[in-house]
């Protein structure tokens, strides 16, 4: 549960959330922990349990994706990201 997942922000973020793409899957994640660094479309972030932990370089993101594939965790990553159910792609504070 300690490995973090790289994802790219694909839509302009709202105050607390941003839509990211992780190996073809799009989901909302919370971006409060990187707000002080600013978050914008195209940024790569490390995602942990539905939250962006920090911003990373595209190069680092590529390496992390390779690493997860090599660790045999690509399927698990896809399950996890697909599993984030707190929003279905349209805003997140509503039930």
């Amino acid at each position, binding site marked *: *549960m*300690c*490995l*973090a997942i790289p994802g790219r922000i694909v839509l302009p973020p709202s105050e607390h959330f941003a839509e990211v793409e992780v190996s073809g899957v799009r989901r909302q994640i*919370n971006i*409060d*922990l*990187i*707000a*002080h660094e600013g978050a914008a479309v195209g940024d790569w972030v*490390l995602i*942990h*349990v*539905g*939250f962006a*932990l*920090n911003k*990373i*370089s595209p190069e*680092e993101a590529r*390496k992390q994706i390779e*690493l997860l594939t*090599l*660790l*045999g965790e690509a399927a698990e990553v896809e*399950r*996890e*990201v697909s*599993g*984030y*159910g*707190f*929003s279905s792609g349209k805003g*997140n*504070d509503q*039930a």
Partner: protein
Amino acid sequence: MKYVDEFRDSRLIRKAALELQRLSSPDRHYRIMEVCGGHTHAIYRYGLHRLLPENVELIHGPGCPVCVLPMGRVDDGLSIAADPRVILTAFGDMMRVPGERGSALEQRARGADIRMVYSPLDALQLARRNPDREVVFFAIGFETTTPSTALTLMQARREEIPNFSVFCNHIVIVPALLAILDSPDMRVDAFIGPGHVSTVIGCEPYQFIAADFHRPVVVSGFEPLDLMQAMVMALGQLNRGEARVENQYGRVVPWAGNPAALQVMDEVFELREFFEWRGLGSIPHSAMRIRSEFAAWDAERKFEVAGLQVTDPKAAQCGEVLRGVLKPHQCRLFGKECTPEQPMGALMVSAEGACAAHYHYSHRMASR
């Protein structure tokens, strides 16, 4: 094991392995503890332990949250689910950890409403959708995970969601390292510091290990080359008689950590006086509890929690393995009564547990 072979052949890995050979003086034994369970998993997955000189020994640290959670806390958490109003939610890793009356999965099979979630925000969403039920999130994890729970609790308070609460088992890595350094059977010469925990807390909190205990700490990434480099750095320090905190993972870990994450953790949580760790016993100031400002969302205040002290199965030697006194396969249950399919101890449950990693990548291959 195709990938492992590819990595073995990698020129850079081989170079690092040669460098470790060169650095290790034959008259000396080096014991390096990789603190983080993610590192343990990666080391076994790539077979890095087999690339090390004979006198460089890896000791697997306490950095696997489900592994160090004592059985009493597992039972306490699961007991909340006995209330028919309750939906208990937990990460996948937690679902298979054995409690005295079975794991979460087994209790679910007997009728308890226990559901796996990938994010604490999913648990909060479940509470919004089920206003007539009490949704409890079984929170575990080190500082990597704690800020997420903090933000979820802040969101619950902002929206005044009354039927959501957290059973908090968040733990803090530094006091556990201090307990290991203080223990009489302490055998560690240097530490490989955790990668993602350090993105939150930074490198500063490890300074006392260098200053007061004169042990090097090298914060490392998760790639094979990262880990090999970190070991080269640690051996270099040991040979020069130095003890410093170094950051091999600077491309991801800022020296000062993540100020926003530290701030939300502090707003929502405070340190407990003591917390029980499996294998390490009771450690002062080693875990978080929910501050009174958030009492309405604290499952320990909302529900009757017995506070059980359950001893681990006598025959299992999880404690010795966690302290690095025994290797996983030296436990008398390893691979016999205790396997990943039928775990007796938590070290066998999580992919990050030393026993599961050893079983999957050393034991099973050897017995083929």
